[in-house]
């Protein structure tokens, strides 16, 4: 027994020794954890599991990435933990959702902002779309806005919560169309908001393109417009808001990617920034993402830094009136 313990201790020393000796050159030396601030089964969780599944390959990080869910309060719980308690050693990553965390940091009451995180790479971009029930009288955004003009504040439409992409899209629509709408945040997230539309509890809703695409395929909803700069490959027939005469940009598009806490060693950030985008480009990852109806948008660290800064500016302006 004693011999066995001694052997185990030696083996352990052998394993950790090199890692301690030559600093970060052998990073990663053990499995990595990635925090997702939404529950298991949500779109972010689902996609995070797919895009990290090849991390253990020799040509990628050579170590697996395990997903850990810390859901609550629209992502605030997880990101608060990540900003204040997560160790900045490169073994704790997190998934980010823009514009959610930026909007929440502008709203206040949380202990993070863009300055507390270092982006690594972006994997996906899920635009918001406007949906109505399959048997609704509305056939275009013009119909929706006409109704809202007749009934100020009476057009009820659902979304996944306050200070998330859907809420931003709702604010942009109100501003661009010059009408007052009744945005109803749902406590059960995007799935709950979609249910409210299908059940006819609300007249319409803002939802994720990927979920709306499925609901439309199932014959439950009509998609009236995309809150993005261009039409989406999944929905080539659905016009953008701009095409329908509303001056709305892509500020509400839900960008998903990987980040680390501020203070992570620069060598580790460089290594991750180099390897992680290649993981996203893996053919197996791409085919799984496409099968699941999840639009991808791979961006490098520098591109994400620029995107975060641009969002910060737009959102500060948009949320200033609230």
């Amino acid at each position, binding site marked *: 027994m004693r011999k066995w313990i001694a052997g185990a201790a030696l083996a352990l020393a052998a394993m950790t020794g090199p890692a301690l000796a030559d600093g970060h050159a052998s990073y990663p030396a053990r499995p990595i954890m990635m925090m997702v601030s939404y*529950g*298991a*089964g*949500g779109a972010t*969780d*689902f996609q995070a*599991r*797919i895009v990290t*599944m090849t991390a253990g390959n020799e040509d990628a990080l050579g170590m697996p990435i395990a997903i*850990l*869910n*810390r*859901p*609550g*309060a*629209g992502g*605030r*719980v997880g990101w*608060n*933990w990540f900003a*204040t*308690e997560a160790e900045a050693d490169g073994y704790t990553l997190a998934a980010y959702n823009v514009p959610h965390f930026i909007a*929440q940091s502008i*709203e206040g*009451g949380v202990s993070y902002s863009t300055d507390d995180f270092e982006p690594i790479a972006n994997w996906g971009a899920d635009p918001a779309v406007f949906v109505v029930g399959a048997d609704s009288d509305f056939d275009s955004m013009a119909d929706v806005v006409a109704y809202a003009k007749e009934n100020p*504040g*009476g*057009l*009820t439409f659902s979304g996944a*919560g*306050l*200070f998330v992409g859907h809420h931003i899209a709702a604010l942009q629509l109100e501003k661009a169309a010059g009408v007052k709408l*009744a945005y*109803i*945040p*749902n*406590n*059960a997230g995007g*799935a*709950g908001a*979609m*249910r*409210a539309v*299908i*059940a*006819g*509890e*609300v007249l319409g809703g803002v939802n994720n393109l990927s979920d709306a695409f*499925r*609901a439309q*395929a*199932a*014959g*439950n909803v009509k998609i009236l417009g995309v809150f993005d700069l261009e039409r989406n490959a999944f929905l080539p027939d659905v016009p953008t808001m701009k095409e329908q005469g509303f001056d709305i940009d892509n500020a509400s598009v839900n960008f998903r990617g990987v980040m680390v806490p501020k203070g992570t060693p620069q060598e580790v950030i460089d290594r991750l920034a180099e390897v992680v985008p290649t993981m996203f480009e893996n053919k197996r990852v791409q085919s*799984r993402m*496409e*099968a*699941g*109806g999840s639009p991808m948008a791979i961006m490098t660290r520098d591109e994400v830094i620029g995107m975060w800064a641009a969002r910060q500016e737009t959102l500060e302006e948009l949320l200033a009136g609230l």
Partner: protein
Amino acid sequence: MDFLFYMGDVFTPINFGLLLLGTIGGLILGATPGLSPTMAVALLIPFTFQLEPQQGLILLGAAYTSTVAGGAVSAILLKIPGAPANIATTLDGHTMATKGEGAKALQLSFLASAVGGIFGVFLLIFLTPVLAQWALAFGPSHLFWLAILGVTVIGTLDSSSVVKGLLAGCIGLWLATIGFDDIMGAQRFIFHPSISGGINVIPALIGLFAIPQVITMFTKGRSSDDAEIISVKRHPIRLAFVEVLRRKTALFIGTITGSIIGLIPGVGGQIAGLVAYDQSKKFSRESEKFGTGHSEGVIAAESANNAMVGPSLVPLLTLSIPGSPTAAVLLGGLLIHGIFPGPDLFMNYPQVAWTFIDSMLIGQILMCIFGLYIAGLAARVARVPHAVMAAVVLGLAVFGSYSVQNSMGDVYVMASLGVGMYFLERFGFSAAPLVLGLILGPIAEANFIQGSMIANATVGMGSYFFTGWLNWLLILIVLASVSYSIWMEIAQRRYTTKDDAVAKEEAMS
């Protein structure tokens, strides 16, 4: 009868092997405190990446079915409900186990689970289109009234008096307000970083049920040196069958309540067991025996929580909306293979969809067989000396709370709630109403806020919450439930004097 046509696919060697693996693995995961069905299914998702869609779903379906039933094992033997679905099982099940009837309790719970579960899957097979409409019928106003109905149950649930039951429920409702609120994101009562996400139900459950029991075991060890020997009674499986069939009312109420409530998105799974327990208590001829190790309590609770499994998948399979967290994880398992659930699912992928449903049906039966097999062995847990038992339960409680989201904060929450509950129990309060308050609080609040936002934008509060047959039906049930409790209170004068409390305390220790 498509489901019979594809039944053969379940029995190919690989598929059946996976079904066995999912069932046995699910029972073990379900019996582990802290591993809820949602987490168990999420843990298995990576394995399905390598499998064919059909095989992956067989594994997930079998695991979902048997984790729900496996939760009864720790609820009965250790008084740790692994998930909210098993709370009601502890009330009578654990009392039976401490009397040496653990084997009987486990056998009853697995048999009742199988009956409820098979009924639920048959509902899924035959009535899916009808049920889909029902799942959509519950809007914010209805969910609000449903949560209020749950609150009225609180008073009569396992307490020495209605007032104490309601008080415990109020403590639960208060605990539920801690953290960021679900809709507005406002911060409430956050006095320590570990509760910034609110009180997670699973650590709370473990703490409230297991810790008082651990403390009681430790104190007992100090006072009496001669540890009592509980003789574990053997219980032939044949008698368990007879017992389950004899308790038709409980089985019927449990199965029906579980199926109906299981359909309601977001609410069902958590309260189905408790509502069924309460209803069968009210309808039973031996209602005073509930809570003292009565077999009807176990049968009602367990048939309800497995009956909910089939119907809880209706919104996912027909409308492509996951109705529960577990269904959301299953949705991921489908999407990863490029299968979009919806009304066309059974047309486009009949082989996948029907084999999945068939595997849940066969899974229920396998689960029952394995469950009955382990029941006799597992019940010997009651013979473990108190000192050892206390240490094991404490270890499992810490492990279970930590594993929910790898957080020591949850362990602190579990420990402090548990110690608080120990003192509350000495004053005749009990954990079940408190947990029910904790679960119902957010449902009632979020739906009231959502409902009032919709109401203010459209028809106004009065007509939104008080029109429509479903609203009135729920309001009438609420009124009936309240008047029944008041009537029982007057009829029975159910309050505890100091002497009673002392007597109960002595009986417990």
